Structure formats: structure tokens, C-alpha cells
């Protein structure tokens, strides 16, 4: 029944530690999680396991006695349970508890922090792409603002002063809004559990950032949204994924084309597609685009981590990121994420 190359594991304890382990193990193809147990029915790891379709129970002993298990990991922090495991487990089953499981938990924590830093580093590296666009969008209102302010110093006609003061305020507000958009994007994602994210507003916010990559370009943008669509994810991270995919799409079109953004519900999932009419991706590249450090951009222009991170983020929330592409016609990325209906 079980694959000899795979390690079968049960996790005891579905608090913070158990949830983190579950998240990590579920990403490893070499590991099969047979079940997770916690005496508390409301433990976060049990709900998480439900979403992953991994069996859960409040009866720890059943899992301990379960046959064919390679490894029991006890992250309950309860030393008495280690004794119970030693007494009740099958002889061939190994057990990890006490200090050993603590070290494992520390490793998992460390890995998760590293990944968050990687997401952030890639995002900041990509900010260079937007520099000219941001400068352009700020320089226009800045010009209006400075020129009218200069004029007001000498202007005597009250009506003109009022009118130009209004233009100055409008220009200042435009700059303010650009700065808000940039800071929202640049800040590190807040570590938090998945929450329901309003997809369409997040897409529009991301578009504002991605458009900084479109200076001197002539693109039309088509949006086709399903109303009130929500998905379960970290909003900051999802925002990052959208910006990444849209920026790629814009770059692929090299100046002219149509960027189509759509959102819809399908089979209890929230789906989002970001499509371009750009140069497309060849078959040999298509297999590698999610690999870390794979890039077709000249050295110094791409980290090769954008799509890798995007997929890692989507997978973290039990979603999928897929791609369809045809050389010369364009590329479509599709994100699928659990939405409120599956909660």
C-alpha cells in the first residue's frame, strides 16, 4: 500500500508547531502525512489539515498505534506523551519528541523566515523596474505644483490664485497617492494566517504598481471581474504575486498589446487569469520558468525568482499557479485558490 521511498509520518499536536510542520511536510513529495491529532478540536492545524484533505483526529492513541508508520513527531510539548508513545507504538515505528522535535520546530521556523526574506528580497530587486515609471508619474504633478506655486507668489488676480491653488492641491494629492501605492508594495508582507482577500481590489491595486513598468508603452487593459470574489491567502503576498505576473506580462509585450485580467469562481475555487499578447514562451523554457534563478533577462535585470516565489506563495495557500503559452501569440497565467465557499 505505501511507497517504500516515502516516509509515512503522523503529527501529534496541531498548535503552532504542528501547523508549521504540516505546512512544510505537505510540500515534500517524499513525505506522506498519515494523520494529525490534537486533543483540542479547534486546534489550527486540524482545520488546516482538513483543507489539505489530511485525516485528523482528537484521539492521539489511535494514531500512535497506527500500523505502517515510519515516524511519529510529537510537538505537543507534553513529556508524558513521549512515554505513552514509547509504550504504545509499533516496534518498527520511530518517534521524535522532546528536544529533537523542538529542534525540528526551530528549523521549520527558520525556513519560513528565510522564505519570507526571499520573497521580500525579490520584490525589492524588482522595484528597479518601476523607477522610471514612478519618476514620470511624480514629475508631471510636481511640475504643475511648482509652476503654479511660483506663479502665485506674483499673481494678483484672486480668482486665478484660487484656481491655481486648487490645481496645486490636486497635484499634491496625486503624488501622495503614488507614494502610498509604492509603500504598500514595498513593505514586507505581514506574517499572518490566510484571510479572505477581496480579489478585484487587490488586482486593481497591483495594476497601479505594474503600470509603472509601462512608461512609453501603448497597452490596452481589459478587466473582466466576477463581483465580490474572495480567496484565502495573505493579502500582501497575493498582491506581490499579482504585481509580478502583471509586470512580466507587460514586459513580454514590449510596448504594444493587450493585458487581460479576469477573475471568476469555478468548482468552489477562486480563479484569476493574467494574460498578455506578447512574444510567448517557448516549450523548452516553459518547463523551467518556475525553477529558482531561471531567467531570460540580461544579467542584472531579473533575479529569476519572481515566478518561483509566486508559485511558492500560491501553493502555500493550497492553490495552483499554471501557465499556457504560445510563441508569438502570448501567455496566460492562471491562479487557483480556495475561496470562502470551500471554507
Amino acid at each position, binding site marked *: 500500500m505505501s511507497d517504500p521511498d516515502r516516509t509515512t509520518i503522523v503529527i501529534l499536536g496541531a498548535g503552532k508547531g504542528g501547523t508549521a510542520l504540516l505546512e512544510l511536510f505537505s510540500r515534500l513529495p517524499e513525505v506522506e502525512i498519515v494523520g494529525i491529532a490534537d486533543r483540542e478540536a479547534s486546534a489550527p492545524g486540524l482545520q488546516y489539515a482538513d483543507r489539505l484533505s489530511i485525516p485528523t483526529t482528537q484521539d492521539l492513541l489511535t494514531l500512535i498505534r497506527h500500523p505502517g508508520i515510519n515516524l511519529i513527531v510529537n510537538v505537543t510539548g507534553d513529556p508524558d506523551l513521549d512515554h505513552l508513545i514509547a509504550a504504545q507504538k509499533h516496534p518498527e515505528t520511530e518517534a521524535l519528541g522532546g528536544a529533537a522535535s523542538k529542534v525540528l520546530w526551530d528549523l521549520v521556523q527558520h525556513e519560513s523566515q528565510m522564505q519570507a526574506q526571499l520573497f521580500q528580497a525579490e520584490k525589492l530587486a524588482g522595484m528597479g523596474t518601476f523607477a522610471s515609471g514612478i519618476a514620470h508619474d511624480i514629475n508631471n504633478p510636481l511640475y504643475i505644483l511648482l*509652476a503654479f506655486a511660483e506663479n502665485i507668489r506674483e499673481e494678483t488676480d484672486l480668482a486665478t490664485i484660487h484656481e491655481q491653488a486648487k490645481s496645486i492641491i490636486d497635484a499634491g494629492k496625486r503624488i501622495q497617492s503614488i507614494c502610498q501605492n509604492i509603500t504598500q508594495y514595498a513593505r514586507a508582507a505581514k506574517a499572518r494566517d490566510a484571510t479572505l482577500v477581496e480579489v478585484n481590489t487587490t488586482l486593481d491595486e497591483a495594476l497601479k504598481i505594474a503600470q509603472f513598468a509601462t512608461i*512609453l508603452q501603448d497597452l490596452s487593459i481589459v478587466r473582466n471581474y466576477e463581483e465580490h470574489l474572495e480567496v484565502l491567502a495573505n493579502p500582501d503576498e497575493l498582491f506581490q504575486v499579482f504585481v509580478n505576473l502583471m509586470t512580466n506580462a507587460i514586459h513580454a509585450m514590449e510596448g504594444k498589446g493587450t493585458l487581460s485580467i479576469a477573475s471568476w469562481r469555478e468548482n468552489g475555487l477562486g480563479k484569476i487569469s493574467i494574460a498578455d499578447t506578447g512574444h510567448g514562451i517557448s516549450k523548452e523554457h516553459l518547463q523551467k520558468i518556475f525553477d529558482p534563478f531561471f531567467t531570460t533577462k540580461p544579467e542584472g535585470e531579473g533575479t529569476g525568482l519572481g515566478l518561483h516565489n509566486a508559485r511558492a506563495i500560491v501553493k502555500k495557500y493550497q492553490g495552483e499557479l499554471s501557465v499556457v503559452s504560445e510563441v508569438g501569440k502570448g501567455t496566460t497565467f492562471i491562479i487557483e485558490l480556495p475561496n470562502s465557499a470551500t471554507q
Partner: protein
Amino acid sequence: MSESKSAGMFSGRESQGLVLVVDDEPDVRKVVRMTLEKSGYEVLEAEDGEKAIEEVKKGENSMLLSLIITDIRMPNMNGIDVINYYRKEWPSVPLIVLTGFPDMDMATSMLKHGIVDYLVKPVEAEKLRASVAKAMEQREVRGF
């Protein structure tokens, strides 16, 4: 700054020249108009290349047009295309690019295409006027 007289909208007799300002932002056009009218120029406004042609075709404008000040980011047209567009329509009218896009490569390439100046917003009034004056001189040298 010497602003002995304010050259109003209809200062035909004293006009220093007719300048076409092309930018998709009304307030930017207003700022340029304000700056140039203070120095006695007449100003035509257009929001894009197509409107520019319409505007110049009105009345005697095409006879009087002395200079075009244009953004290089416009609907359906960008960068060098914009320059070529005006060149095709009015080969002898000098061009000044006024853009929010600080790009040395773009500036160099456009100057090679013979534009008078590549100005990056925000540009000081004096600098804009100096640039316009330079364009007018070049025009006179060329015999217009």
C-alpha cells in the same frame, strides 16, 4: 524676469511666435501656456498628435506655427514615433520635448534626431523660456 507687459490671449501684434503645446494633461498645458504667454508667445494646445493636427489646420495657424513643445508619451504613439509624426506633418518646425521621463539614452537619441531640447519636468520657467528662445533663433537662422 522682465514682465513689463502681460501678453494676453490675443496679443497678435506683439506675438513672439505661435507655439503648439501637446500634452495629455490639461494642467501641464496650462502651466506651459502661462509661462510662455508671460514672454509674449501665443499658445495653441492639443492633448495628442491627432488633435495637434486639427488645431494647426485652423485658420492661419499652419502659416504662423513657430514651435512645437510636446510630451513623448501619448496614446497610440511614443518616443521617436512622436518626433517622426511631427516631422512628417511640419518638417521645418522646431521641436522641444517636455517629458516627465528622465532618460539619458532617450534624450541623446532624440537630440540626434534634431530636436532643440529634451526638457524633463519639472522644468523651471526660465529654462523653458531659454529653450524656446533658442528654438526661435534656430528658426531665424534657417530663414523662416
